[in-house]
């Protein structure tokens, strides 16, 4: 029995039934991790010792007859921008290479309270700025479906690790698609929750009004279990709303009868690979066959998402990243004068990060604020408004997660606009604060295709139900990647 291939709910059954120990589960995943990591390079830090300790603790609790929660003893990975006290949290940056947080992120704390076992911190584009994980300051992570391709980003390490079975689930963060795009590229499930659903305390920010952490897992059920644990108000995060948290697994019912699906035409137009569009439509038709009602409609604001995003996100980033000045923590250049220390220290930031800081600084500058930041916020309001109207007509919206399947390593490092465009389908959910899920719905060129389902704010249950129904009717999630070079 290959434990690393099993979903969390199956592992839980084996564990409480006494058929395996948490240590055996963790060891199985760690072994798998060691097996695939040389090819994938999905991790920045592997916390093997800690994982075994945490697993041992779960076994002790089980022996004492304690009732174990559903994710107890389940190994997981964290994107390396989620703080863990005492464990390096680098954000994929040389700036934070030696930074060790003095406190835990709320979501890590919640997973620990649920008994989950941390196996490591995963690679990411520096400060989550990128869509391929090639902008990590440390190394490139490869796609387990084809080692010549990118895993997507910025949560590429988490996606690759989960697809390959190096952990059962992972947490990623999503500012413009950073959970969903790599989930799609690696053939797994990724959820970007409603803005305010999950605490951001301890999650190192990229763009605070857009960032949201969420689960990445092999199945919809596992993702729902993780969402159950991490969701909810946090007194340390004013933007983590008090909206009650339902049991998301209660939505895992295969039923879409009468469901109204809206399909925004703009997400199937120019720039979308025909195979991708076809696979999504095939998925939509399947849901229709199961009783859903499908209607195409137009989202007029769709074309403005990218430009609004590339003003707002860098603007917030320019401010959020100002704290990296070499004074309190992080890299400090050895220079005598203050200005020199600032500039030299900050030069350790990668080119993409510096580019976005400059963009954002410009957009907020006196004389430009109205033309850029303010305008982008106005566009954002319109985008939000249009989605609100759409959800008066439809229960969920379905689009491709990405315009194409995972691209080749190096293909876009010199064509940033093309890379930015790979997020074109996912940005709107962040701008409008909506929950969205990506799940596997086909293959093209031997690479997974992701289908995105969007819901109205706090309708995670609804999108989980649609995703679950689809998953029950398809086999894509049962495929395991070869972790080898594919045929390009």
């Amino acid at each position, binding site marked *: 029995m290959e434990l690393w291939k099993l979903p969390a709910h199956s592992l839980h059954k084996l564990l409480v039934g006494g058929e395996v120990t948490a240590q055996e589960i963790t060891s199985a995943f760690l072994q798998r991790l060691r097996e695939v990591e040389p090819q994938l390079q999905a991790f920045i830090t592997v916390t093997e010792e800690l994982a075994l300790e945490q697993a041992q603790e779960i076994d002790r609790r089980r022996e004492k007859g304690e009732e174990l929660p559903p994710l107890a003893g389940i190994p997981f990975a964290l994107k390396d921008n989620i703080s863990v006290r005492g464990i390096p949290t680098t954000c994929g940056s040389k700036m934070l290479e030696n930074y060790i947080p003095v406190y835990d992120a709320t979501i890590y704390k919640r997973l620990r309270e649920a008994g989950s076992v941390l196996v490591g911190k995963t690679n990411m584009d520096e400060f989550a700025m990128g869509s391929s994980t090639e902008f990590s300051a440390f190394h490139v992570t490869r796609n387990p479906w084809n080692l010549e391709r990118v895993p997507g980003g910025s949560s590429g390490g988490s996606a690759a690790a989960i697809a390959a079975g190096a952990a059962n689930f992972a947490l990623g963060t999503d500012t413009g698609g950073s959970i969903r795009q790599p989930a799609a590229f690696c053939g797994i499930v990724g959820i970007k929750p409603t803005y305010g659903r999950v605490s951001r305390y*301890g999650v190192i920010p990229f763009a605070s*009004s857009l960032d949201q952490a969420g689960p990445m897992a092999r199945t919809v059920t596992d993702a729902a279990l993780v969402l159950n644990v991490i969701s909810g108000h946090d007194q340390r*995060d004013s933007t983590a709303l008090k909206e009650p948290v339902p049991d998301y697994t209660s939505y895992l019912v295969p039923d879409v009868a009468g469901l109204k699906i809206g399909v925004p035409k703009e997400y199937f137009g120019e720039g979308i690979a025909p195979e991708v569009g076809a696979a999504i439509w095939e998925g939509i038709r399947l849901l229709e066959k199961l009783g859903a009602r499908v209607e195409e409609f137009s989202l007029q604001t769709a074309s403005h998402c990218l430009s609004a995003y590339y003003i707002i996100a860098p603007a917030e980033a320019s401010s959020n990243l100002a*704290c990296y*000045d070499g004074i309190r923590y992080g890299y400090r250049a050895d220079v005598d004068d203050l200005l020199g220390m600032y500039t030299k220290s900050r030069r350790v930031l990668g080119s993409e990060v510096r580019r976005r800081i400059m963009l954002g600084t410009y957009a907020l500058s006196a004389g430009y604020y109205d033309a850029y930041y303010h305008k982008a916020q106005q566009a954002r309001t319109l985008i939000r408004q249009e989605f609100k109207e759409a959800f008066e007509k439809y229960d969920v919206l379905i689009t491709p997660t990405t315009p194409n399947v995972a691209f080749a390593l190096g293909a876009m490092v010199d064509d940033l606009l093309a890379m930015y465009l790979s997020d074109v389908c996912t940005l709107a959910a962040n701008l409008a604060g909506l929950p969205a899920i990506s799940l596997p719905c086909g293959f093209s060129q031997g690479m997974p295709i992701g289908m995105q389902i969007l819901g109205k704010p706090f309708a995670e249950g609804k999108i989980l139900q649609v995703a679950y129904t689809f998953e029950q009717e398809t086999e894509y999630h049962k495929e395991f990647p070869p972790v080898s070079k594919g045929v390009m």
Partner: protein
Amino acid sequence: MQELEPVIGLEIHVELMTKTKLFCGCSVGFGAEPNSQTCPVCLGHPGSLPVLNKQAVEYAVKAGLALNCRIASTCKFDRKQYFYPDMSKNYQISQYDQPLCGEGYVDLEVDGKKKRIRIKRAHLEEDAGKLVHGSTAGGDVSLVDYNRSGVPLLEIVTEPDISSPAEARLFLTKLRNIIQYTGVSDCRMEEGSLRCDANISLRPRGTTELGTKTEIKNLNSFRAVERALAYEIERQTKVLAAGERVIQETRHWDEQAEVTRGMRSKEEAHDYRYFPDPNLLPLLVDQGWVERIRATLPELPDARKRRFMEELGLSDYDAEVLVAAKDVADYYEEVLKYYGDAKMAVNWVMVELMGLLRKEGLEITACPVSAENLGKLLVLQEKGTISGKMAKDIFAEMFSTGQDPETIVKEKGLSQISDAGVLAGLVDKVLAANPESVAAYRGGKDRALGYLVGQVMKETRGQANPQLVNQLLRERLDQPE
């Protein structure tokens, strides 16, 4: 050249005395070990988030109400961005275009006339840390203490309604007084819990257009504000008289040299790039809550002064001096709980008590004589148990020992002799021993009476009731022989 008039506006930062900081749970106490009152939030550690302290909002609203400000029903927090090592995030959370407190005013009395200084706005913001420069074996160092980082401040901005340095000082004194009355800040300039920057420009008297202003920083006392403004008026007058233009800039007050100096323009070329802090939701201020806060406002200085004058019959001067220091006025009112003569009490508080406090360099809050004991002392005097002279001596004793007046009177056997029977014998004795004085008095020299009273007092070691002695002596002397 036309006569010029100064146009002055002030920006005052008041530290709010909340238990914890504006956006985290750290303590705000002054003088703690450097960096001991810090956490990931106020140190700006990656991923930490601010959570607004409701008490700070309440205090800001309270101060705003006391300054007659309109309280916004909704406001927001913005990031003011600049790099400086005392800024833990390299941005300060402040309020840019939607302050918590809008227009308000403070009324002054200038040359017997009411003068209204308008408040433009008052907003909440977090304080920065403090840089300490020093040297170690390894060379010169700059150290940062983040204890102050995140301490709640209320920034109060006036309209340019102030017309002279003296008026600026008067305004500050009044403002401090009002804030102290609300109890939201102790407003100690020496501890930095009240800070002031001043904007000043000149214009031809009688015109309305504003001239180019300069901003003066590093004002560490009310006196400094007054002196710096006076200096700046002189400087700008000279500049304008020479046909030059005043440069809009920030100038630093040099306390020793008593001059303002322009800071290098590079240092002040700030574009703060304000934008709404996405980590904080817009603040909705419930107007019912505001009214409940208004109901907790204490009687403010102007109202109290009016009451002191109208109900207690105090003079304008006495009432003004009393209310100008809340603690003194509080003490005074406490004394009145034990002693009913308001005018007598005000003299004692303002002359005897304040005199000794000044001499010992003590604040009234550290006064060794409780208001209750002072009240009791005055009662003893009124009842004639002790004389006025004795009261003063006993008071001095109370001040140095902290004892209550009854104990001192008892222990020292100081109570006044008011028994006519006892005094009559002594009066006879003194009269018999001083025939010359008796003759002098009867010869029309009233002054001789004083001498005789003194003799009786001497016999009783000062304990005789002087009025009674006086009366007894007159009775005897005025009797036909």
